[in-house]
Each structure stands twice: as structure tokens, then as C-alpha cells.
């Protein structure tokens, strides 16, 4: 790592990057380079380290080890401003727009000093600039009022304003319809012809392989090799993306009765980032939701719980669900286990007991006074059954491990007794292997009692092992449904990367 190496035409050269977040090794000794006039695809499953790699290359994150060279110069100071100065442009998956400001103001802020017009000419300049990219976006409108597709294209236009030598695109087509993708690719290819190097992160293999020259695969933060796009098949790439060793067992899946009652029925439900979605989940069924991050899975789940706004109908046990606020679904027996455990699911400083019983205090009270004895008796059996590891039930829940925290939030649906639907978002994220099985078992136990469970997970192995059926979401809609007898990591990943799109819908 000590010698800088020979001078090449690489516009981006990343060497030996490692980065850990706490105990999680997001990247381990990863190298990638991008030549002038090349599209280099970077593919991998959710959580394989693609975004971390882009974050480091663009200066937003500092690596633990390794170097970044942009246009032949070493990025010494890890800041987005420094990376921009060296000639790097990036279009973030979740954008860099100041939503309160207008489109023109956002473009103006993104422009480097030599490309910037006088302040007063901002509007006409913004209009012309967007026209050169063949974009028709109202420049005076607040950016927050734009449709998501426009926001995504504006993000790319902003990155191009600096006339970068290398352009990083992080899932740039998530909000685009198929016909817009072609237009977008024309725009990118035009830049490539002018000598820009593009690092293109996408989970949509057919899309990205149609334009990429080379492709690098990441799995679990480790590079799996770089290949000529023309000489590698989608199947081979999928094989490189999957194949983590199986480290955890799954509970037995009882056969589903042929015609179990539908508990959760969704018709034409749509929100800002998903829909329309039609779906039925039956009694005793665990339904998995797969998809690349940011394709509407989480907003859909949250809309069902009344946490995000949506239009359309959802019903539980035949009764229409009032999703205007979280209170409606809760009353109807629809419980959300949020993926944001500390922020939404739990009260970190309150005790295990208080967190477990908070929804059923009335039942545990006499004359308005909550009886501690009743509370403890109510949870003691469940604490044992779910194997919550703790010193005492008076311990603050934040002092438990991630897995045990999740188990505490799982006590709630057991305590209520009237739960009909459990919506679980990443139920085992940040959970150690030992606790995972307990959580799977708890979800399966509720299903066996007749509850319908919907599990959104970014881990295909988990979905394949736990669920009775998996739906795959892309651009906010259900694009595939995988029945139990077909479930497997490979089958799910293939559906996510779109290599078997249309195989069944």
C-alpha cells in the first residue's frame, strides 16, 4: 500500500478500503477502479457494502484503512468538498436536495464557481442547464413539490454541473419508470462519450448490464472480483452475490390449510413511495417482503400501520382499517414492530417491564392504579418463553443487547392476546445469531395461533427460511410472488435483481 503505483488513465482508483461500523465489518480490503469513458457497474445484495464504498469514495465517510484517488490525486482530507474539487460527482440514492429551496436555487448551490451565473440570472440559467440535459423540470418550484422521478433526475443533473471526471450513481433509477430509464441512460452515455468515468451502483442487473463495460461484485463487504460485462452472465453474477454460509436454523413450517381465512386484505393502497398494492394475507401465514432497499417496502408496511399517509383500502378480518393514524390499526389488532427500535419501537430508558406492558396497562390496573405484581406476573412467563436475557425486569431496556430488545417488543403482541396482524420491519437487524432463532420461533408461534405476519427483510436467507410466501417489490409495486415450494435465497435474489422478471407476476 506504500507505493502509489504507476500512472494510469483511471479517473477513480480505490485501494484496500476497510470500514467497520461498531461490530459490523461493512467493507474489508475492497479495491475498485474506473477508467475514463467507462461505465463500471457495482452490484451486490442489500447490505453488501455498496453504499459504504460510495460514501468513502465521495468523502462523506472516512475509511478505517485504504486510499482513494480521484483523477490521479489522492483524497487526503475526507470531505465531500475535497472530493468535488478533485473531480468527483455523486448522485445520492436519497438525494442531496434542500427541499425548501427551489429547483433553481438547488442547482445554483450545486454549481462550481466558474459555472455559476449572476444571482439574478439564476432562473433562466437553471432552465437552460436542465434543457442541455433534456430535462423539463419547473425551475421555480420548491424541490419538495417535485415528483420523485424528477427529484432523481435533478440529483444527477446537479452531480454533472461540476463537470466531474468520475460520476458515482447510487441506484439512480429507483424512482424511474422503464421508459424514463432509457432516456436516463442516453444522458449517462453522452457523458461517457465525453470521457467521464461512471461507477453505477444498481441492483437491477439487466438494466445496468445493458450499459456497463465492467462489473464488480460485492458480498458481505468483500470484493468477489471484477469482470467484463460482456463475458459474464446474470446467473454467474447472482451466484457471486449470494451464498453466505447458513448460520441459523429456522422453526418448522406447518402445512398451511388449503383455504385459511384472509385476515389482512389490501386493495389499491398507495402512498408517496409505493403502490398501488393489492395483497391478501391468510390466517397463520408469514408473508415475506423482499426487494432492494428504497423500493417502497418500508413505506408500505408503515402505511398499513397508519404511520405514513396513504390512500386506498386495507381491511383486517373484514373490517375496514382506519389508517389515518396509528391508533386505528392498533385498535383493530394490527401491530407494527418498527425497524427503528430505539426511536420508535421502544422507550430506551424505561424498564423491560414498562416497555412490555405499556399497551395493556388498563388490564393490569385496579381503580386506575397499575399493580406491579400483576405486571410482573403477566410478563414473567413470556420473558422465559422468548428467552429474554436480562438481570431483572426493572433493567432499562437500552442496557440489553439488540436481540433481547427486539424480544421485549415482541412480548407486546403476546400480552395483548387480540393481535390479528404483526407487521415486522427487519426483525433481526442488529440481532446476534443466538437470538435470531428465538425471534423466528416467536413469530411462528403467533402465526400458529392464527395471526397473519408480514415480515419485511433485506436478508433473502431469512425470508426463504422463515416465510410461507414472499412477495418482491420494485419501484413501489409487487413485481413477483414466490410460493413456498420455490423459496430459496437464489430464487429471491434473482427476483430482486430482475433477471427473471416476468417469469411470474
Amino acid at each position: 500500500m506504500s507505493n502509489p503505483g504507476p500512472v494510469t488513465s483511471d479517473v477513480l482508483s480505490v485501494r484496500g478500503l476497510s470500514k467497520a461500523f461498531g461490530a459490523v465489518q461493512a467493507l474489508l480490503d475492497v479495491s475498485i477502479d474506473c477508467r475514463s469513458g467507462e461505465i463500471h457497474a457495482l452490484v451486490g445484495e442489500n447490505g453488501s457494502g455498496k453504499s459504504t464504498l460510495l460514501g468513502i469514495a465521495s468523502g462523506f465517510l472516512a475509511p478505517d484503512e485504504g486510499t482513494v484517488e480521484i483523477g490521479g490525486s489522492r483524497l487526503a482530507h475526507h470531505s465531500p468538498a475535497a472530493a468535488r474539487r478533485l473531480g468527483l460527482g455523486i448522485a445520492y440514492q436519497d438525494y442531496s436536495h434542500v427541499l425548501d429551496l427551489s429547483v433553481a436555487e438547488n442547482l445554483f448551490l450545486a454549481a462550481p464557481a466558474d459555472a455559476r451565473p449572476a444571482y439574478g440570472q439564476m432562473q433562466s440559467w437553471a432552465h437552460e442547464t436542465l434543457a442541455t440535459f433534456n430535462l423539463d423540470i419547473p425551475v421555480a418550484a420548491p424541490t419538495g413539490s417535485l415528483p420523485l422521478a424528477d427529484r432523481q433526475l435533478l440529483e444527477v443533473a446537479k452531480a454533472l454541473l461540476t463537470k466531474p471526471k468520475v460520476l458515482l450513481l447510487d441506484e439512480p433509477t429507483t424512482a424511474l419508470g422503464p421508459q424514463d430509464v432509457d432516456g436516463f441512460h442516453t444522458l449517462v452515455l453522452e457523458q461517457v462519450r465525453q470521457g467521464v468515468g461512471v461507477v453505477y451502483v444498481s441492483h437491477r442487473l439487466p438494466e445496468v448490464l445493458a450499459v456497463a463495460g465492467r462489473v464488480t461484485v460485492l458480498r458481505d463487504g468483500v470484493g468477489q472480483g471484477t469482470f467484463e460485462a460482456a463475458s459474464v452472465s446474470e446467473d454467474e453474477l447472482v451466484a457471486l452475490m449470494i451464498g453466505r454460509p447458513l448460520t441459523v436454523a429456522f422453526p418448522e413450517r406447518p402445512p398451511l390449510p388449503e383455504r385459511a381465512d384472509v385476515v389482512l386484505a389490501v386493495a389499491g393502497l398507495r402512498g408517496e413511495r409505493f403502490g398501488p398494492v393489492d395483497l391478501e394475507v391468510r390466517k397463520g401465514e408469514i408473508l415475506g417482503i423482499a426487494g432492494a432497499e428504497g423500493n417502497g417496502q418500508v413505506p408500505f408496511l408503515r402505511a398499513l400501520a397508519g404511520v405514513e399517509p396513504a390512500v386506498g383500502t386495507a381491511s383486517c378480518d373484514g373490517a375496514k382499517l382506519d389508517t389515518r393514524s396509528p391508533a386505528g390499526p392498533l385498535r383493530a389488532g394490527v401491530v407494527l414492530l418498527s425497524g427503528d427500535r430505539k426511536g420508535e419501537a421502544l422507550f430506551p430508558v424505561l424498564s423491560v417491564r414498562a416497555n412490555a406492558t405499556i399497551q395493556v396497562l388498563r388490564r393490569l390496573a385496579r381503580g386506575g392504579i397499575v399493580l406491579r405484581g400483576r405486571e410482573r406476573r403477566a410478563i414473567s412467563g413470556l420473558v422465559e418463553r422468548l428467552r429474554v436475557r436480562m438481570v431483572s425486569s426493572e433493567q432499562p431496556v437500552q442496557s440489553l443487547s439488540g436481540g433481547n430488545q427486539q424480544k421485549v417488543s415482541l412480548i407486546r403482541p403476546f400480552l395483548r392476546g387480540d393481535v390479528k396482524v404483526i407487521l415486522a420491519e427487519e426483525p433481526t437487524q442488529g440481532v446476534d445469531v443466538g437470538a435470531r432463532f428465538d425471534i423466528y420461533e416467536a413469530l411462528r408461534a403467533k402465526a400458529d395461533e392464527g395471526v397473519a405476519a408480514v415480515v419485511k427483510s433485506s436478508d433473502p436467507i431469512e425470508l426463504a427460511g422463515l416465510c410461507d410466501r414472499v412477495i418482491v417489490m420494485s419501484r413501489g409495486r409487487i413485481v413477483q410472488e414466490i410460493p413456498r415450494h420455490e423459496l430459496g435465497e437464489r430464487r429471491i435474489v434473482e427476483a430482486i435483481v430482475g433477471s427473471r422478471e416476468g417469469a411470474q407476476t
Partner: protein
Amino acid sequence: MTRAWLPLVLMTALIIALGIYADAHSSAFLSKENLSSLLLAALPLIIVSMGQAVALLVGGFDVSVAALMTFCVVLASFTLTPTTSGFALVTGSLALIGVGIGVGLFNAILIRVLRLPSIVATLGTLSILEGGSLWLRGYPQGAINTDVTSALTKSVLGWLPIAFVVVVAVAALADGWLYRTRSGLALRAVGTDERSARRLGMPTGRIVILAFVVCSVMASIAGFYLAAEVQVGSPIIGNQALESIAAAVLGGASLAGGRGSFFGTMLAAFFLTEIDNVLPFFQQPTEYAEMAIGALILLALVLYQAPELIARFRSSRQSIDAVDAPATAA
């Protein structure tokens, strides 16, 4: 655009309405003596509020400004005594500005480096400065150089303080900067969405630190005018912390950051002082002023945020509908 003008129009209307009402009650209100004292009395609050507006623009609060003003008054009773003259007056004045810069940096470090919420960090600074003032002067004591104070309060036409004209011009120029230049836009961007601003390559840390230093320096300049008013090293006179936030908010600043107007702040600070000034004409106790100011802040917040809340509600409905609409891109 209409939203930006609302505070300016409202404040101007209130100032004129209250003035007409006061003039109808007592001809003394528009006398040269009263106008002069009203304009001079308004200066400390106007200056400190314009500083506060900068802190609000980057999404912070500075509640230590009043304590800093007081500390500067006390300090002036040591560095700008009646016997100080010549070059010592310059260094004595620079000491006050230096304290402003120092306190600003101290606040900025607490907020940016040690990541304390700005309201908590500056509350701590407030306490330290209050204690420091009382330690230096246990009670009002130590006259302040009258050459300095009379130079600061010099008037033309017998009633119009030059400093007031300067402050109005500065407020107008500062608004021009905020809404007509890139660095002004950058300040608003950082206050609205710091993460996006950083991604666009802006030095967000430097901008926030600078904002808090400017806020403190403005407070120490306000301290000069407070000193000119009391003319003695009083450790217990500054109480403009809430009023300065009130003035910035009435003048159009958003508590969430990213929006504000220096000219609006100037008008609002003047209006708040006007309330204090006219109450004696009606033989009303000054407690009413405090109650009126509190009620006004709440009213202004509701009034100013209302269009935004309505727009947000509408756009969340619209953007759901927009999902199915064909995208406009080529």
C-alpha cells in the same frame, strides 16, 4: 414570496398603528425628546436581535446574548472609565469585541465539536457570564466614559441618532446579502437541511461556527449601546434573551432554521421597544408589555407557519397522486 413579505408588512403596520394610537393619547409621544429616546432605547435590542437572527438561520438558539451584553457593560466600566483617553479607548473597546468573539467561539465549540444542543450550551454560557458579571461588580458601580457614550449616541436633526440610520442600512444590506447572493443562500441551505448542504460540498461546520461568532459579536456591540444607556457598570441589566428571539421570530425567522429577515427583525425589535415606550403614556404598568410580547410571539408563530402547514398538507396529498402521473423527463 408573499410569505417572506408578511412579517415586514405586519410589523410596519403594527408600529404605525401603535404610534397613531399613542399620538392620539398624548402629544408627547411624537416629541423630539421621546422619539430620540425611543430610537436610542431600541438600539441594543435591534442589534442583538439581528445577531440572534443569524443563530436562528443556522437552526440554533443563543440564549447567552443578554448575559454577554451585561458582561460587556460591566467590562466597559473597567476598560472605558471616565479617565481613559486616547489609544486606551481603542483597546478598551476592542476588549469588548474580543470578549464577543471569544464567547462566540466558546458557544460554537460546545455546539459543533462537543455536539451539545445550542439552547443547552448557551444556557451554560449564560450562567457563567452572569456569575462573571456579579463577580466583577457586586452592585452597579463604576462610571463609563461619557466621551464614548455620547459619540455612540450622536444625533442629527436633534432626534435621529446616526447609529440608528446605520443599523437600518445594515439590516437592509444584510437582507440583500441573505436573499441575493450565493453565500446568503448557502447559509439558508445549511439552516434548512445540513446533510444535503454538506453533500453539496459546503463547509457546514465553518458556517455554523461563524454564525454563532457573529451572533456574539453583535451582542457585544449591543453591549456598547446598553452601556451608553445605563452609563454605569451594572451587573443585572441585560434581559433581552427571550426578546431577541421574539424579535427575530416576529421578523420572519423560522424556529426550524433556514429562514429569517434582518430588516424584519429590526422592525420587530423596534416594535417591542415601542410597546415599552408607550405604556407610560397610558398610565399602564410595564408588566403588560411582557404579557403582550409573549402573546405576540405565539400569535406570530401561528400566523407565519399557517401557510407552510397548509402547503405541506396539500403537497403530501398531491405527491401521492403524482406517483401514477407520467414522469416529465425525456
